[in-house]
């Protein structure tokens, strides 16, 4: 790694900006500005800094559509928006996916468009913390704020989450190293436990690493629960962990003054999916018989939870909301993007502030090669390679979606483009 001298040549500093990368949403970044351009950023981690000091080579600046040779061609906004609106207006089962890296105002326009056209609205939760949302519906949500963690927590457990890599300032600023009202000595007043099959960077900073075997999370949490409830373990080794260690861990967790469990995608992406989170939530509930415990999912994008809360507020469901019958419907494994794509149902796909090209499994993405894809994004990414219309977004995403909505409404109201699918009132 080469040494980078600090940037000293700047006009002024803008203090206390919010980072729009990960779910920590750090709000203490300082931007160094010269000639109206951000030349450097202070306090951000590597991830936050890379988002702010972006790659201008790949920044999308002009709208583009594919010509008949399959090559992207630069066009003006009107043409691009008309083309996108045409795709949406002529579709029977459109899916609008993304929303996690854009503003809530934009989501509002998106819901209006989705409701009008009968689309499925889904966000990145469907491929990351979807199972957590289901588990919360199953088992409850014993949550606390990060302020409480900073001021009170003395046992921090990370499970299936590599905070040092995906939320790099989480340990430093919110949970472990920071000092708090009742934790004056910071790190020395806290015990950190990492439960992860991998000896991850977070595990390296922890006091204790529990390396249960792959797909062993469900059995492991059940064993802790059994111990917490005073039962005896009959097997000597459970999920690759000797039973003595499980007794010791349960004792340590019971004796916490204030404990917190942070869990990540390690739990949601393995075989037992939401059952893992179910059991982790129930474990936290059991621990509350002895001491005060809470939990927090480590959400990825800065506004991914925003979309879930917004949708739950607007239509009652957190993600994967299907408007095709004119009213919101939600059915796991039915109205979620990956399931829809693997069943080859959608006939138009709009990606906004997301990157399915980089994050969806091949089996789902294959269908994107058969249907028109509209991309609203700031960078040329893997999804651009599959996109038929590319609309450069940024903080005017809201305007783009509103424009699309108006154009789609106009097209649908023309007599010759009547909707192909009319909701059937007898469908139920």
């Amino acid at each position, binding site marked *: 790694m080469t040494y980078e001298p600090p940037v000293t040549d700047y006009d002024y500093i803008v203090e206390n900006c919010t980072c729009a990368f990960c779910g920590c949403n750090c709000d203490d970044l300082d931007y160094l500005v010269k000639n109206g351009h951000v030349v450097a950023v202070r306090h951000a981690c590597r991830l936050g800094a890379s988002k702010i000091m972006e790659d201008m080579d790949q920044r999308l600046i002009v709208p583009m559509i594919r010509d008949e040779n399959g090559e992207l061609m630069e066009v003006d906004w009107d043409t691009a928006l008309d083309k996108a609106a045409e795709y949406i207006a002529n579709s029977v089962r459109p899916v609008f996916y993304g929303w996690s890296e854009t503003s809530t105002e934009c989501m509002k326009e998106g819901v209006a468009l989705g409701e009008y056209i009968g689309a499925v609205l889904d966000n990145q939760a469907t491929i990351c913390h979807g199972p957590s949302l289901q588990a919360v519906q199953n088992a409850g949500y014993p949550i606390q704020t990060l302020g409480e963690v900073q001021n009170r927590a003395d046992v921090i457990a990370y499970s299936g989450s590599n905070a040092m890599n995906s939320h790099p300032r989480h340990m430093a600023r919110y949970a472990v190293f920071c000092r708090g009202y009742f934790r004056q000595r910071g790190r020395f007043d806290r015990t950190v436990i990492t439960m992860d099959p*991998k000896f*991850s960077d977070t595990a390296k900073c922890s006091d204790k690493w529990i390396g249960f075997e792959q797909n062993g999370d469900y059995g492991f949490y059940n064993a802790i629960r059994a111990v917490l409830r005073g039962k005896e373990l009959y097997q000597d080794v459970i999920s690759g962990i000797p039973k003595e260690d499980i007794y010791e861990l349960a004792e340590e967790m019971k004796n916490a003054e204030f404990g917190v469990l942070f869990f990540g995608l390690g739990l949601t992406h393995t075989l037992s999916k939401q059952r893992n989170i179910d059991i982790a939530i129930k474990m936290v509930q059991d621990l509350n018989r002895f001491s005060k415990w809470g939990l927090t999912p480590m959400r990825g994008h800065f506004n991914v939870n925003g979309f879930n809360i917004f949708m739950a507020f607007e239509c009652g469901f957190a993600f994967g909301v299907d408007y095709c019958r004119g009213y919101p419907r939600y059915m796991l494994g039915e109205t979620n993007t990956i399931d829809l794509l693997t069943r080859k149902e959608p006939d138009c796909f709009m990606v906004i502030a997301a990157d399915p090209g980089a994050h969806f499994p091949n089996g789902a993405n294959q269908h994107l090669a058969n249907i028109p894809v509209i991309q609203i994004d700031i960078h040329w990414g893997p999804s651009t390679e599959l996109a038929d219309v590319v609309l450069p977004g940024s903080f005017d995403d809201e305007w783009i979606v509103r424009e699309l909505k108006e154009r789609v409404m106009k097209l649908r109201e023309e007599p010759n483009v009547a909707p192909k699918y009319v909701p059937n009132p007898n469908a139920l």
Partner: protein
Amino acid sequence: MHYANTYLEKPVVPDVKITGEGTTDVLKCMLNTGSDIYQGACKKRGSTLKEEYKNASGTCYMDPRDMAKLGVNNWDTVLVKTDFGEVVVNCAVSRDAPHEGTVFICKGPWANTIVSHDTYCCSDPTYKGIRCTVEKTDRKVLLMADLMRWVYKKYVDETDDDTVENMDSLGELPVYKGRKWEELIDHDL
């Protein structure tokens, strides 16, 4: 003007020399995917067409003992196969070793080619804990744009994998018709 820079050509990996010719051709492993800080930084900076993303995301992190069994060293290429597909990636010594029998590929177009799309009705595909085989190969790791073309073939007429794999590279900069990117943005404003 001096901009702060976070570009890094390759992730930092333990500088271990693997000795041994390799005792096996095909290694059976468990595949894990997920994010790490190099991949995350490169993706969110938007450098996805670049060599940097290929190295950050298209790299299979292995236990050094597994690498010795195959007889590969840091930044050699390996072919990873699962029930869902196959992909050529670099290999490197894992920073989290030891984890013999498990390999880790950061999420991205390379990993997507081989992970399972089964959601078991839970909305979430199975990205972790997939059985795979790893073998040594001479094939090249494709850049992002070339890989997308090879896997999805949306805008090529060819259907043959090998032909598409050996087509001219789309390169590390956006390819489109119109004004050139350099005219639109001025790096040294």
